[in-house]
């Protein structure tokens, strides 16, 4: 949808945009280095020809076993120009800290909290870096591939239930 945007990105940030390709269904994707994400996003938002004024979705993928382990995915949309772009940012497990884009798009707030909650990606400069879904007492990040599938962490003591068909108890694996 926006070959022009990809081209402009590559011209403007030759070092930060490592690869561009057309994904399935015609979505244009750019692989961006982690350190440059805030500048790239600011350019995408403020450039008069691009004007990506909306970040409809930000999420994360865990490619457990490969390096970099996590992949942050930013979907951008311009309500003015009616075009889209997708940014992918590789995040290594040892240094899972990314600059927050919430100062640019307020709507990114809860998406970044979600990524912190479920995958443990920390966003530097986020105004409210709490978990989104899980409670504060929760230890770990449940959508990571190495989190135990039934790793329940009860908030209160549970009655013993002698029931063979329900599987293991609250914190069983």
């Amino acid at each position, binding site marked *: 949808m926006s070959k022009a945007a990809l081209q402009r990105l590559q011209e403007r940030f030759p070092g930060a945009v490592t690869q561009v390709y057309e994904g399935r269904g015609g979505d244009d994707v750019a692989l961006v280095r982690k350190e440059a994400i805030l500048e790239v996003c600011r350019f995408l938002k403020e450039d008069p020809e691009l004007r990506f004024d909306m970040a409809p979705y930000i999420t994360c993928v865990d490619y457990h076993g490969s390096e970099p382990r996590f992949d942050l995915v930013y979907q951008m949309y311009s309500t003015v120009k009616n075009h889209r772009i997708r940014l992918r940012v590789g995040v290594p497990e040892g240094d899972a800290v990314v600059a927050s884009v919430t100062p640019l798009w307020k709507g990114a707030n809860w998406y970044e909290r979600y990524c912190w909650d479920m995958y443990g990606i920390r966003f530097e400069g986020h105004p409210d870096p709490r978990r989104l*879904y*899980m*409670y504060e007492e929760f230890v770990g990040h*449940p959508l990571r591939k190495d*989190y*135990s*599938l*039934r*790793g*329940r*962490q*009860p*908030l*209160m003591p*549970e*009655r013993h*239930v002698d*029931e063979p*068909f*329900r*599987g293991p*108890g*609250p914190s069983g694996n």
Partner: protein
Amino acid sequence: MSSSSDLDLVPAIATRREEALTGLSKMVSKGLGWARKYSLFQYPFVTACCGMEFMAVAAARYDLDRFGAALPRFSPRQADLLMVVGTINVKQAPILKRVYDSMADPKWVVAFGVCASSGGFYDNYATMQGIDRIIPVDVYIPGCPPRPEQVLDGIMLLQQKIQDQQHKLIDRERPALPAKG
């Protein structure tokens, strides 16, 4: 339903005190049970899609009012039937427990749908595997979601159970106070 003894899972142990119940108090118990089973004031704790089925069963076509359980209360303090309708996750468990604790005795609990009964297919990091892990449950209604007929059957089972319980005009048992630390 011929006899009710198959409903109570806990076998009744007849003590001397119970044997000494006079015919009058048995009559009072029966009358109170009759009155209570036909005026179930429910508190629907609706958390998930089963709520739609609850609305269907409470509305005109299936009409819980025929069983005297029509009025949903908006405070647990006014209710005596807690209907847990939908998935209860670990984060919500303390809230449900608090709602249950703030209901006045006598009170009953219905687990509406398979998620409230056993967690359903949500066997994951977030979902409580059945509300009976935190509060006692009187009737389990299976189904995802249950048909309204199943809910009506569950309500009738609960009414049978209430009728067979022992009710007192004045309950002198002191409520258990939480231990102060």
